[in-house]
């Protein structure tokens, strides 16, 4: 029997079937993306651990000033931006459009500040002679792993800033709803979450003593 000949009831039962997770499909897609992205980051961090463990001369270049202090500031900014995103989501759910926009843009501003501090950190290391496959201290793979992991995270931050800005502007014009703000807040919190693993693995296990 072809699909076109099916009685209406057969289709209708499929269309009206409730979501198995009781969340909108867009939110489920974001969760699935987050899980796949989490596994990607885990694989990269495992690869980093593999290389670091197998290299007897792995460098430990991060001094308290400027690197660790900079990382502390970046962590503070990113975690604070998660809090502002929570407030934005709350405002959006309460139909406080102005408040939702204000807090979402503040979150995006936090992301921009984080990215600028990160780029400053990169430039400092490049100035000290760190390149993708060479550095003045030890294993030449240090630069490749450092720039790959932090670069992928930075790409996520920049992508998040763009997405939040687009969704906020769309929300202002009525194109997007409060749910869209909430769904993109999941992504922003995930970016924050990944940073919680990048900091100890990449920076704090390699502090200069």
């Amino acid at each position, binding site marked *: 029997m072809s699909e076109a000949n099916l009685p209406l009831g057969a289709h209708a039962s499929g269309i009206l079937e409730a979501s198995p997770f009781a969340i909108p499909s867009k939110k489920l897609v974001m969760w699935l993306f987050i899980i796949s992205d*989490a596994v990607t980051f885990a694989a990269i961090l495992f690869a980093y651990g593999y290389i670091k463990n*197998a290299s*007897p001369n792995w460098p430990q270049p991060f001094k308290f000033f400027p690197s660790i202090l900079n990382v502390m500031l970046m962590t503070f900014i990113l975690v604070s931006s998660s809090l502002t995103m929570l407030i934005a989501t709350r405002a959006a759910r309460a139909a406080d459009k102005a408040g939702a926009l204000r807090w979402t843009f503040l979150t995006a501003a936090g992301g921009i500040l984080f990215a600028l501090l990160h780029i400053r950190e990169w430039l400092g290391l490049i100035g000290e002679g760190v390149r993708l496959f060479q550095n003045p201290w030890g294993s030449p793979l240090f630069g490749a792993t450092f720039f790959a992991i932090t670069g992928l995270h930075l790409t996520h931050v920049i992508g998040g800033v763009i997405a939040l800005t687009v969704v906020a502007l769309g929300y202002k014009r009525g194109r997007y709803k409060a749910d869209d703000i909430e769904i993109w807040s999941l992504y922003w919190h995930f970016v924050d979450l990944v940073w919680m693993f990048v900091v100890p693995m990449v920076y704090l296990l390699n502090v200069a003593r």
Partner: protein
Amino acid sequence: MTAPAQATDSLKTDIIVYVCILALAGLQIVLAYQHAEGAQLLVRMLAVALIQAALAVMFFMHLRSEQRNLKLALIPGTIFVVLMMNMIWSDSFRLLHMSPPVK
């Protein structure tokens, strides 16, 4: 649609979780400057990071307010995949012992 699930958390709860995550980040800095052996330090750092991540997922991302179906669909599979990645370590140690001495 999703509002009832999230209405359970107040802003006060969010701020408490935010402060806890920042405090744990501070703890990681303190741990980094203690003279612990490499593997021990790694375990401590990862334990703190996992607590931070659990707080973020459960409270910031509101997974604790979602249906059990969603939690079961997302969490065990991810943990299984990450656990399976630990198979690489034996090869990493093999590489370390086969490598030539540092010049």
